[in-house]
């Protein structure tokens, strides 16, 4: 589906710089990498998480554990959706008890994905702390959720959406402001 692009907000170099800054902020806030683990939300949150881990590895010299979360089964719009989203596996290959988890998503919008991710994560144990890092915060929150690390704040109006493209799936790195399809609420949250 091609949508009308209104502006390119972050380009490839910009994305790289943003990832670097997020990595530094995460390290600063947590005073290093002890007990730290990164969990990406499928799909693009996972690639973002991998890049942040790579960046932290470059800075600190060691690799943080990566977890992958699929939140399909925890969505609150399950009953309203007509067709079944394909569920994929979550992979949390480490014990999350007592860990400081940084949850990573590409776009923060209503906050409903984050809520679902928190619930999904709790099924794996009891982390000491969970922080939230997002590439873009586009506003319009419907739940009391606030990110700890933000790549860029992009206040959007109704009728606009954010499209994050990443090389791993989309062939290029950038963040676009696009027009949303008519009468449809975005699902890219």
């Amino acid at each position, binding site marked *: 589906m091609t949508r009308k692009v209104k502006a390119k907000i972050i380009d490839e170099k910009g994305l790289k710089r943003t990832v670097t800054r997020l990595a530094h902020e995460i390290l600063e806030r947590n005073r290093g990498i002890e007990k730290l683990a990164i969990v990406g939300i499928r799909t693009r949150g996972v690639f973002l998480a991998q890049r942040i881990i790579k960046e932290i590895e470059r800075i600190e010299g060691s690799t943080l554990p990566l977890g992958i979360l*699929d939140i399909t*089964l*925890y969505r609150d719009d*399950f*009953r*309203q*959706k*007509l*067709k*079944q989203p*394909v*569920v*994929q*596996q*979550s*992979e949390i290959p480490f014990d999350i008890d007592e860990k400081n988890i940084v949850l990573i998503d590409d776009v923060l919008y209503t906050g409903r994905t984050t809520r679902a991710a928190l*619930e*999904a994560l*709790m*099924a*794996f*144990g009891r982390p000491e702390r969970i922080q939230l890092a997002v590439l873009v915060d586009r506003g319009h929150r419907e739940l009391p959720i606030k990110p700890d690390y933000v790549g860029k704040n992009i206040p959007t109006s109704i009728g606009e959406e954010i499209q994050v493209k990443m090389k791993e799936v989309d062939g290029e790195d950038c963040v676009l402001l696009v027009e949303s399809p008519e009468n449809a609420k975005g699902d890219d949250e």
Partner: protein
Amino acid sequence: MSFERKHLLGLEDVSAEEITHILDTAETFKEILQRPIPKVPTLRGKTIVNLFYEASTRTRFSFELAEKRLSADTLNFSTSASAVKKGESLRDTAQNIEAMKVDMVVIRHSAAGAPHYLAQCIKGSVINAGDGCHEHPTQALLDMLTIRDNYKDFKGLRVAIVGDILHSRVARSNIYGLTTMGAEVALCAPQTLIPYEAEKWNVRLLNDVDEAIGFADIVMALRIQMERQTQNFFPTLREYHNFFGITRERLDRANKKVTIMHPGPINRGIELDSDLADDEHHSVILNQVTNGVAIRMAVLYLLSGETQE
């Protein structure tokens, strides 16, 4: 791919893509069942009735556990403790279920076609948990999931189904499912326990169990259904065992790796040697049971997708 079905009544008309999709979805649920808290909120607020007109432990427990792991509300019905004892018809029971706004019904019934009839009577989804001598689709799906755990591909895989094919809904669903997926299926049983329709199926018919073991990568032993042996299909159980029992001796003679499956409950020492059933080198019978919960979660999840009009 998207899954468009509302009911799962049998595997006869289910495509290879759909079967693969169900198996893939079940893999996700297998992972969930390994978690410290093996429960997801997906079917919260949905009501599911388990209508078991026939005895069952495995299937009923497996469905009930799957429903609970998905956070659905469940109602259990068994004929001995319900209005059926007072002579209520399936149609009336269905209408009452409908009036209680139930979202899904899991039904086992001694009459073939009962789930199909129910699907016409009610608005919710219907899952066939075994109808007479017709189909038992979730059993075949969990068998296929277990096979896929042990073998990469169904294409060219050789499966011998040995035992009471005539009365077996498990056999029918497996024959439909496995041949759709590209496996080669052979049936082995006394002539009296092979149904006429077998000629229409794309299967080999073997009379000799040694030949069947020689042919197969996987041997699926079926239960001799004592409760359905009203005519004399074979002279004695002992003779059946001598001619068609899966024994250690026969496996040793075949001298190759054979995986043993059985849908349960097992008549130990009749269709299958007791020690073979417990031998982890051959038997995947308990894996079948574990996979059953994941398959049923996948089916419940996939069928619950469409909003009700």
